[in-house]
């Protein structure tokens, strides 16, 4: 059977997210409890989490989480990392053996900073340098896969139900100001750890529920800019789009949302002239980055989360608020499970991004 | 408002319909000398021939008077008009007042003095349905009929009774048939056709004297007959109008609004004179379409509308024993002629307008010619050579064609 990257696999999913607007620490246990409720939305072939603010002691450094199939792969990869980065710390990621999670690869974590001379030689900005290194490892080193590469954040994922994955990674030992979670229901996969979600690049991580019909249009466009969509998953390409628009093109997240879930022309037509011109401009300029088909995504980024539905709202998505916390999930039950008494709960409209950031 | 109409034929009916176009409610009283529901006078010959029936001859449907709120007074002859008191007096001494009066009294047969005619017992004129009914009663397959007059009435009468009698002889003083509407060549063609259909024609001759069943002609011939029909001509009924002091020449004089010299009195139909557009002369145009249009015009004006009838022209269409002829206008100026075995065409034109035409046999689309006469269409604005061959709209200018076939309705060209 072909795995992610060799074939495109559609999947249904569950997603959940929590953020503290005050930047207060949230224990990883909460997000595990939230995603656990939506057990039936996944089928045991993938689960994962992203936590932000979890590595305060290493917050100036890129935290690489890497799967290795073999020791040889690890050695080759570490040689590559050594050549390009100063490694501040490295270790295996602590895990807990449980019966539900099997066949685990080698899972390592590195806190790194780009090698100053290598960076200068590359004539790239730091983030681009790091991103390119990640692409090189993932495409060129057989058996090595960097699945998390941001600062003060980390992705934890595996083949299994998400609540088991949370236990496996001992998430109750982490605290962060925001978390996202994903439970996967692929229709066809042998289950490859790298294929689980969230998908992350640098500080961006995406959990996504849906199957986008614009995939190949988006992918082929993104590949023009050096993004190699090796996994052939929606989440991967959405991550790259957000990275491209936000990081490379300097769009705000609202503007990014106006591109990927652009309003219908009929809606744009009714806007005031200035807004009409702006929306038309964005939609036309990045026409190939419009995402159609059902999706609900939670984008994790530094100091914030964004939830976005496709324009027709073909996937469920609800948002709840309680004090400084904002909850985002596929189902209300996933929010009630960890916060029964909400101040407010609502379903965002299709195409309207909900962006929550940590107050500075 | 009370309208009084004298006459129940085309002009009278036209007048009533004209009034009703403008005034839906005013009182209309219509007097008819005859007893019948309005009927079409020219159909009496068709009736004799069996081509129509008394029912079909009705000029308007049975409900006509009722529907148009007309008080219909049949068998009631108006004997005099008092234009000062604005009343009309009818036979029985009754007076009826009017606000507007229409005189559509029609015409009557003209009978020149013919010695011994009083000796003829079976003697008929051929103007009214009563005449036809009287004549019809006497027809037998053996009857020998003498018709004096080879005009429209005489010949239609001949056609009407031909199959029902033994022999028909038509005598006329003129040297040809239908002298008022046909030229010599056309007359000759019709004469031949009549002869072929068993009508004996004696032309350039007239009756010198009658006995009960014989007529001695000026030429010395003697004709034996059983029935005599006199169809020498007609005269307008203008007596009451004249007595009332209205201007009368050959017929009652009207203006283009059909108003007589008295502003409350109008006149239309065979009793009036018209301005013949084709000849530019005042003349009596005793023709049904003309009568109707005059009557309608008068009716509209009587009811306070504004209508002008300035398109009067002579126009005749008739068939005799299956041969059709249509004629219109006056025969003056240059002439284009074309004759074949069974058709004849003659167009008269002068001073850049079509003046008149005669068509026999092939009469299709003749109205195009008629309208050219009526509208005085300048011949240099049309392809007259083409028109000579056939009456066709294609001979008109592009704009004119566009007007005729592709606009809401045809607007008459503005002249002057």
């Amino acid at each position, binding site marked *: 059977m072909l795995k992610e990257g060799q074939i495109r696999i559609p999947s249904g999913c569950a997603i959940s997210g929590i953020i503290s607007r005050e930047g207060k620490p949230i224990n990883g246990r909460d997000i595990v409890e939230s995603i656990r409720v939506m057990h039936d939305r996944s089928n045991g072939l993938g689960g994962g989490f992203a936590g932000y603010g979890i590595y305060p002691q290493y917050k100036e450094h890129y935290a690489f989480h890497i799967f290795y199939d073999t020791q040889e792969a690890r050695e080759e990869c570490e040689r590559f990392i050594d050549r390009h980065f100063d490694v501040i710390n490295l270790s295996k990621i602590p895990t807990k053996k449980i019966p539900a999670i099997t066949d685990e690869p080698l899972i390592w974590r590195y806190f790194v900073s780009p090698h100053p001379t290598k960076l200068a030689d590359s004539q790239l900005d730091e983030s681009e340098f790091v991103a390119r290194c990640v692409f090189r490892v993932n495409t060129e080193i057989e058996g090595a896969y960097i699945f998390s590469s941001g600062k003060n954040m980390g992705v934890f994922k595996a083949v299994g139900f998400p609540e088991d994955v949370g236990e496996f990674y001992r998430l109750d030992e982490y605290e962060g100001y925001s978390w996202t979670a994903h439970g996967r229901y692929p229709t066809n996969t042998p289950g490859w750890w790298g294929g689980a979600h969230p998908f992350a690049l640098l500080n961006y991580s995406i959990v996504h529920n849906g199957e986008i019909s614009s995939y190949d249009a988006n992918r082929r466009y993104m590949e023009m800019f050096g993004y190699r969509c090796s996994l052939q998953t929606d989440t991967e390409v959405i991550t790259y789009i957000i990275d491209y628009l936000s990081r490379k093109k300097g769009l705000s997240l609202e503007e990014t949302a106006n591109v990927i879930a652009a309003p219908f022309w009929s809606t744009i037509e009714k806007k005031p002239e200035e807004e009409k011109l702006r929306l038309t401009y964005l939609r036309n300029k990045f026409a190939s980055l419009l995402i159609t088909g059902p999706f609900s995504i939670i984008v994790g980024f530094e100091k914030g989360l964004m939830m976005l539905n496709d324009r027709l709202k073909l996937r469920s998505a609800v948002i709840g608020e309680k004090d400084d916390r904002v909850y985002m999930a596929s189902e209300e039950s996933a929010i009630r499970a960890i916060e029964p008494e909400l101040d407010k709960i609502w379903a965002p409209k299709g195409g309207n991004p909900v962006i929550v950031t940590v107050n500075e | 408002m009370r309208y009084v109409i004298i006459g129940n034929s085309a002009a009278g009916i036209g007048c009533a319909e004209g009034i009703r176009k403008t005034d839906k409610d005013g009182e209309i009283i219509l007097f008819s000398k005859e007893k019948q529901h309005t009927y*079409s006078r020219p*159909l009496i010959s068709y009736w004799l021939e069996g081509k129509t029936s008394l029912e079909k001859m009705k000029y308007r449907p049975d409900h006509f008077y009722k529907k148009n709120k007309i008080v219909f007074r049949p068998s009631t002859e108006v004997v005099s008009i008092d234009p000062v008191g604005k009343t009309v007096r009818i036979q029985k001494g009754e007076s009826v007042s009017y606000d507007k009066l229409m005189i559509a009294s029609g015409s009557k047969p003209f009978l020149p003095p013919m010695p011994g005619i009083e000796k003829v017992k079976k003697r008929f004129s051929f103007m009214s349905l009563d005449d036809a009914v009287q004549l019809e009663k006497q027809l037998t397959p053996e009857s020998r009929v003498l018709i004096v007059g080879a005009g429209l009435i005489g010949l239609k009468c001949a056609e009407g009774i031909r199959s029902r009698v033994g022999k028909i002889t038509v005598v006329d003083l003129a040297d040809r048939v239908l002298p008022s509407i046909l030229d010599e060549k056309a007359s000759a063609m019709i004469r031949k056709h009549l002869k072929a259909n068993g009508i004996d024609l004696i032309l350039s001759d007239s009756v010198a004297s009658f006995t009960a069943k014989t007529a001695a002609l000026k030429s010395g011939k003697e004709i034996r007959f059983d029935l005599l029909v006199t169809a020498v001509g007609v005269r307008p009924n203008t007596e009451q109008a004249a007595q009332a002091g209205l201007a009368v020449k050959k017929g009652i004089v009207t203006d283009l609004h059909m108003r007589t010299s008295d502003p409350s009195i109008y006149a239309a139909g065979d009793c009036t004179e018209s301005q013949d557009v084709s000849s530019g002369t005042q003349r009596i145009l005793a023709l049904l379409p003309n009568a109707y249009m005059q009557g309608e015009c008068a009716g509209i004006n009587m009811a306070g509308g504004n209508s002008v009838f300035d398109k009067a022209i002579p126009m005749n269409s008739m*068939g005799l024993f299956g041969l059709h002829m249509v004629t219109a206008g006056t025969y003056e100026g240059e002439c284009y002629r074309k004759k074949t075995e069974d058709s004849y065409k003659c167009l008269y034109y002068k001073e850049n307008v079509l003046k008149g035409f005669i068509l026999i046999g092939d009469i299709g*689309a003749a109205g195009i010619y008629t309208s050219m006469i009526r509208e005085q269409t300048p011949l240099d604005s049309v392809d007259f050579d083409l028109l000579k061959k056939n009456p066709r709209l294609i001979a008109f200018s592009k704009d004119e*064609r566009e007007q005729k076939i592709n606009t809401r309705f045809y607007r008459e060209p503005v002249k002057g």
Partner: protein
Amino acid sequence: MKRVYVNEKWCISCHLCEYNCAFANSGETSMVKALKGVTIRPRIRVEENDRVSFAVACRHCPDPICVKSCITGALSAKDGIISVDSWKCVGCYTCICACPYGAIQPDETRGVVQKCELCTRNSCGEPACVKGCPNGAIVFEEREKKQ
């Protein structure tokens, strides 16, 4: 009201209107049966020369001279449609002599006249000439408001 208008610009001189008219008024259900081997007597006729062609049928004038001229009362206008009552018509052809468009024809077989009645008296439902015109040269439309 809707009237038939002819735009000679689009007339292609195919004469189909004549055949469709003859067929519509034949009472037959098949054109072949109706028109094969007969000389057609349509109520619309195409006039043409080598440059121009157009069809002419009754314009249903608002102030119809044919109706006024009719000696029998067989022609009448109702709801804007001028029709002939062939029961009353005696075939005197006065209307033919009067119509400025040449749009009334003798019906020689019956000794009466015939004319376009906008297919209101046959089973066509709408004017057959309009329906069958391949180039929109004959239209049946409302123009009163535009004037």
